[in-house]
């Protein structure tokens, strides 16, 4: 019996060590690498950007950091928007992470639109793109733990080696992934494609069901205020921008609600959801995301906006951003 138990323990230790070594080797392999724009946690550390672009996929796919750098004389702009997450709580933890590893930026632009919510409605189970962050789940260290913690990985995923990597089927992604795409260094993903209206008809207005409800306004305000307070504490100027959606899902009342929220919180708000862009299908690749065509038009509007210019290029205009 003794021999059996001893041998079993020895074997178990060897196997655990083997599994742990594989996990460690994979962790080393993916260290400081981002396999796609979704898990661009790497862009949240040691960046020291002057302008931080934050928000959901509508930030991730709409705000080109290079444009902001060249148009507004910004030294370094980085997009850390998270695809699939319009929750302000996500933006908040991501900002906390960023501030832990970087100097505070001068400006933060956050996309604010009717898709925002205070918290995830599905916070504890199948969060959007949870698998993309699973490679960070094991034994979350100091780096970016707040963002990763947001996804509520369970005990097994956090403390059993290889569990999360196997469970979320990202083994090959970890093994072969690299950070070769230039876009992802800045977190922005450009979309060249046009709207495939056969596969995704314009009549499909399901995106509307995610619009904020008036009853949720108080909690949205609280969450936004939390971000605002954090910005003020670190001397950061917070700017809110509403980007265009296609006319089929546009609703004047909803898109004015965001304006009201920002007004109540005394936040700078820019509504770029103009008819000129939203009425033209060639500007979109789906109902709520623009392709490069739409983005160029939106950028042109921003360039012409003196108020925005005055905030983002204060030295040139002799103004204090705060």
């Amino acid at each position, binding site marked *: *019996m003794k021999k*059996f138990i001893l041998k079993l323990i020895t*074997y178990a230790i*060897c*196997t655990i060590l083997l*599994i742990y070594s*594989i996990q460690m080797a994979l962790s080393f392999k993916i260290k400081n690498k981002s396999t796609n724009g979704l898990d661009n946690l790497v862009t949240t550390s040691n960046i020291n950007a002057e302008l931080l672009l934050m928000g959901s996929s509508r930030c991730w796919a709409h705000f080109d950091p290079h444009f902001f750098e060249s148009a507004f004389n910004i030294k370094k702009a980085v997009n850390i928007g998270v695809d699939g997450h319009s929750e302000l709580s996500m933006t908040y933890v991501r900002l906390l992470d960023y501030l832990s590893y970087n100097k505070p930026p001068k400006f933060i632009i956050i996309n604010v639109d009717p898709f925002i919510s205070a918290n995830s409605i599905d916070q504890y189970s199948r969060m959007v793109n949870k698998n993309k962050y699973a490679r960070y789940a094991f034994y979350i260290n100091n780096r970016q733990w707040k963002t990763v913690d947001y996804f509520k990985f369970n005990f097994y995923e956090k403390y059993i080696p290889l569990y999360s990597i*196997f469970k979320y*089927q990202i083994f090959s992604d970890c093994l072969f992934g690299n950070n070769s795409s230039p876009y992802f260094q800045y977190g922005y993903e450009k979309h060249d494609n046009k709207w495939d209206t056969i596969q995704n008809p314009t009549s499909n207005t399901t995106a509307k069901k995610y619009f904020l409800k008036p009853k949720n306004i108080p909690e949205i305000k609280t969450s936004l205020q939390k971000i605002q307070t954090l910005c003020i504490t670190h001397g950061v100027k917070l700017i809110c921008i509403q980007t265009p959606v296609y006319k089929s899902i546009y609703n004047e009342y909803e898109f004015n609600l965001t304006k009201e929220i920002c007004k109540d919180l005394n936040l700078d708000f820019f509504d770029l959801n103009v008819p000129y862009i939203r009425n033209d299908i060639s500007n979109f690749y789906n109902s709520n995301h623009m392709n490069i065509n739409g983005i160029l038009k939106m950028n042109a509007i921003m360039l012409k906006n003196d108020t925005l210019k005055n905030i983002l290029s204060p030295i040139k205009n002799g103004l204090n951003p705060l």
Partner: protein
Amino acid sequence: MLFNSISFVIFLPLVFICYWSLNKKSPKVQNLFLLIASYYFYACWDYRFLFLLIFSTSLDYFTALKISNTQNKNQRKFWFWTSISINLCFLGIFKYFDFFSTSFTEAASHWGFQTNPYTLNIILPVGISFYTFHGISYIIDIYKDRISAEKNIIDYSLFVSFFPLLVAGPIERATHLLPQIKQKRTFDYVKAVDGLKQILWGLFKKIVIADNCAEYANIIFNNSENYPGSMLFIGAIFFTIQIYGDFSGYSDIALGSARLLGIELLRNFSFPYFSRDIAEFWRRWHISLSSWFRDYIYIPLGGNKGSLWKKIRNTFVIFIISGLWHGANWTFIVWGILNAIYFLPLLLSNTNRIHLDVVAQGKILPSFIEILKMLTTFILTVFAWIFFRSENIKQAFEIITEIFSPSLFQYPSMSAIELSYTVLILLFFFFITEWIGREGQFAIQQINLKFNCFFRWSFYSILIIFIYYYAFMDNNKQFIYFQF
């Protein structure tokens, strides 16, 4: 609690340690502990049905004592039929009521009588077919004076409810298991190591082989109308491997777990896909059930003795009942009939017992004739499994019709089911390992003798990593035989 769950990974070592630490005491204490552990194991699935299990156990225990304590023929007969009827009643209500009710209504409507089927829509208690059969065989053995009734209710309850065999067999016999329960068990190193290896191989068969094949089989069978004959045939092969991996994997885990506790259960599988004819297949597939039917139904009916008509009748009876045992669906009955049709020519020509040894015993490779025979048997079973897997008879016939159409020669598009090369390699590895280890109780039993410690441990580690990988990737798929 599933054998392939984290809870079982915690449960088994705890039971193992506590059980052997009680070794110095009498086996009674160990048995009581095992019984409590078994009831806990069963209650993890649904505690309400635990009462049914306890009731069924108590019924058989007390009626067996009644039969045993009297010499009056009528009284013996009364208690015997009381027990058998109640057992079958439970099985009938929980498993077959809805099926017979629906079938009766359909038949009535066919003859012009419109009625609505009365169905119970109740959950099938897991393992009911298995523990009911334990009880029935025990009562028959007592009635036929083959054994004497067990007086200790703990020992008898453990015979029925021993957790490794409780939910999906093997179907034990009182003559085999009860003496082991009653005697003092001592820890045997070789047995324990064997047990662990068998559990490991069982997990590999279930999690790596069966669950992967299930993915492909499900895609193809669930959309069978969209696939050509070639793909449907591949789907049937995947199911053939799945059901073997699933059930024999379960049996290996059950046998291995019992062996860890010093108890030998009846062998349930013996490399059935290396059989050279259907008779051999049935001697190697679900052995505990086949032998149960043989001993308690086939032989009492006359077996292969008597007139030609009797032989044919007995063969059909046993295979149809076997089909019905698997589930309340016409597909299982047709599966049984098909196997009877396969088996009959061998029985009638008296060639059903020519392959009693292991194929290519002592050799590395089989002869050409043996390959041909194995392949024929395998293909016959693949066709039978189509009925077993299909939702209904109509789907089964549609699949078979498509397989026998020119589309069988259409190049199968593996990308349609996203077939992984890793899975193909694993399947190849699996069959090679099974072939090499076919002379043992399970495929990797002999590995101890062939490799040194480093290679042996590395081999186990590779298996563990694959189990680990697929276990976490797909969260806990249930065993197919749980539904029976």
